[in-house]
């Protein structure tokens, strides 16, 4: 069997892959729906936007569900502490996500304009709110989350929902929202034509600018602000079992979250990729180059998620009130056996998933025009 230490690293990577997979696929679902009421002016345009993702949204959402499942299986404590602690933030995401499956399927089943308009805004909320909250949650990881563990490893959370909405976290929220909106806009550029395509190009460009500004602002805050980074005070036993209370953690107000970048300069590739991606989008969206823009937004996403992951490593959930309780990928982890079994499952199924998902996109590819919508108005969403 593979070394425990290596398995822990594999699962840090795999959860990252699932998160990135989620942001790349469900990301354009969320982004395009968040933009839909603004870039689609007529019913046919809005339906065209919806039908670009109609065959794919459910499969894409499974990246999110599986990332959640993997979090549960690989780091059960992180799942337990984060979900119970950030109770209302998670419920807000849940309620927003409620609007999507029903919105897609039910919206065009009735002709009524009021009905369709309501669902359009529902789909917009279903895309925008989770995108925003995920960013806010990530922002709060940098600040530390107020929880502590007792000796039976039960967590007690002392924060409130509104405490999550602090300025730094909100900037991170805008980073994530604008990033997914740009991605959704680029997707609509790829798959639609006419006015809808043109408005999407405009929106993509604006969103990429917002992303770039906020991403740089959040980075500057980490460099020049007084946000404390966390690090192990003593050597880590990377082969130890779940034992979050066994370590000593120090916080370091002197831009401590940037330590990994100093130690491993190669990791700087992540923020650079995010910035270059954004610049690429800003240039190519103006020229209506859909494929290049989509490549750019994908680069932004991969870069931004890795930027956060590299900075926080090995921390997953730092505790602001009791740094020792902080959860890391070394010590908040499932047993050796479970990680082994899950690795085998992932090695078998992730490649299969990639193959048949690609096939489904290949089969459904093409530009969705208003004419196509009007001719198939009873079989499409």
């Amino acid at each position, binding site marked *: 069997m593979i070394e425990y230490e290596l398995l822990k690293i594999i699962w840090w990577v795999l959860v990252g892959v699932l998160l990135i997979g989620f942001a790349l696929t469900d990301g354009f679902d969320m982004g395009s729906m968040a933009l839909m009421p603004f870039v689609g002016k007529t019913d046919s345009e809005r339906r065209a936007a919806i039908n670009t993702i109609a065959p*794919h949204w459910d499969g894409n959402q499974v990246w999110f569900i*599986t990332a959640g499942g993997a979090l549960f299986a690989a780091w059960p404590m992180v799942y337990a502490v984060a*979900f119970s602690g950030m109770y209302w933030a998670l419920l807000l995401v849940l309620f927003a*996500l*409620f609007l999507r499956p*029903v919105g897609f399927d039910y919206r065009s089943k009735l002709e009524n304009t009021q009905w369709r308009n309501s669902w359009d805004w529902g789909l917009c909320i279903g895309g925008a709110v989770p995108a925003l909250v995920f960013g806010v949650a990530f922002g709060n990881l940098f600040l530390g989350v107020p929880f502590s563990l007792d000796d039976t490893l039960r967590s007690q959370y002392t924060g409130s929902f509104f405490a999550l909405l602090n300025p730094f976290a909100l900037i991170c929220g805008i980073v994530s929202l604008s990033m997914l909106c740009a991605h959704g806009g680029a997707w609509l550029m790829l798959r639609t034509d006419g006015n809808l395509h043109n408005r999407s190009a405009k929106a993509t460009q604006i969103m990429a600018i917002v992303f770039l500004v906020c991403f740089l602002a959040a980075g500057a805050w980490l460099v020049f602000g007084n946000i404390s980074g966390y690090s192990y005070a003593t050597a880590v036993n990377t082969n130890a079992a779940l034992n979050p209370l066994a370590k000593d953690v120090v916080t370091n107000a002197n831009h401590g979250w940037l330590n990994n970048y100093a130690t491993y300069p190669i990791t700087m590739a992540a923020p650079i990729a995010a910035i270059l991606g954004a610049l690429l989008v800003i240039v190519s969206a103006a020229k209506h180059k859909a494929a290049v823009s989509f490549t750019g937004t994908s680069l932004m996403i991969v870069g931004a998620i890795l930027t956060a992951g590299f900075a926080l490593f090995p921390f997953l959930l730092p505790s602001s009130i009791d740094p020792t309780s902080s959860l890391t990928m070394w010590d908040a982890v499932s047993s050796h056996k479970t990680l082994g079994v899950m690795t085998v499952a992932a090695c078998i199924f992730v490649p299969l998933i990639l193959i*048949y998902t690609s096939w489904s996109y290949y089969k459904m590819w093409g530009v969705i025009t208003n004419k196509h919508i009007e001719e198939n108005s009873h079989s499409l969403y």
Partner: protein
Amino acid sequence: MISESVVDLSRFQFAMTAMYHFLFVPLTLGLAFILAIMETTYVISGKEIYKDMTKFWGKLFGINFALGVTTGLTMEFQFGTNWAYYSHYVGDIFGAPLAIEGLMAFFLESTFIGLFFFGWDRLSKVQHLGVTWLVAIGSNMSALWILIANGWMQNPVGAAFNYETMRMELVDFGALIFNPVAQVKFVHTVSAGYVTGAIFVLAISSYYLLKKRDLPFARRSFAIAAIFGLASTLSVILLGDESGYELGDVQKTKLAAIEAEWHTEPAPAAFTLFGLPNQQEMRTDYAIKIPYVMGIIATRSTDKEVTGLRDLMKEHEVRIRNGMVAYSELEKLRTGDRSPDLLASFEKNQKDLGYGLLLKKYSPNVVDATEEHIQAATKDTIPNVAALFFSFRAMVASGFLMLLLFLFATWAVAKRNAEDKPWLLKFALFALPLPWIAAQTGWYVAEGGRQPWSIGEILPTHLSASSVSTGDVWGSIIALAAFYTVLLIIEMYLMIKFARLGPSSLHTGKYHFEKLEAKTGEAQS
């Protein structure tokens, strides 16, 4: 300590959202296979009407599926939001099937469902048929993995407690997958789903037959539903999960509670057809008994006994006392004591640790529990007998009524005279709620009957909840209830509208309302 009201509210919320989720799941499971059968018939026979059937029932499938997906998300979230200590304590085992469910089943089902709806013109006939089968297989595999997880809660095999990490850890993945309780549960649950799909199609087809419209369409749908339903109902009843009741103490207690068997009776025990279980006095009033039947059903023999609740409670009391010892030993281990005697003793006693934890409700330190606390905890070890007794009977009665319906319906299909039997068509129409009654009461038996445990004999429910406030849980219950009510109204509205419209909703020009429109159009012009 988490307050009792948080535990009760969290249980209420979980029950509410799980039962609501399970309004949609069985129909998805069953209808997916019926669609696959219809489309297979289309591909083999080449008859366009079977394609229309696949598309129309697929439309209703879609309306139902959307809410299945929506409400499934809630289930995944809640383990973390409301059952955080549970997630910590058993996540090492419980999380794996959930993650594998995503990788193996959800991706398959969800990727191909898009192609099912939108790929008709993009895929060849055989490719599309393959897609439909993959949706059906994917949804059934997801049921397999979630029931492996649930089966483990009933009969936790293949895992051991680790005092260093203060949680249960996986020891034998094979045992987890091939847990007999999980396997019988899987067969029972998916078959029940097939029955739900069959009743749904049968009832709505009967409505068209009663209204004498779209007859060829309705007749064929009726026939497929009747035959598929009969086979599935027999499977549910014959392969019902009774065989699982022999395994593990929780299942034994559940069985005794279902039968309201307070005393161990000499084998083979009598089956109580009806009665009024009285938990206070621990007896059943006005019982009507059929000799021998229960012994034979439960043990598949005439000489094995079914242990009664009073005797089970005596066993539980012993285990609670032993659990107190195990708990005090665990406390010493947690402080770093690793003396060989202590380790050996804990090894022996730890099987009762869960029973010791039952005392936490009354005495947070467990070791200083009084005699009164022990008696109260012992009383807690048996679930609500009357509720189980009646739920089980409602489930079984629904099952046999459906069997009767499918027997008549299949007979009528063979004789080709269903349309001439309005009583049968009305029976089918009014039988529509039966599979849902059976599924909801059945899940109550499974989950209510597991109490006081969230993980049988290992983790009490009252320890599993998150450390959140009563206000938080009240808030989420109210919000969820409001959301779910609105969604249900919308779903029912659409479902009824499209079911009434029938295949005319496909706009092919071939069916009742469109022909009617065309006719009146001609008359006017």
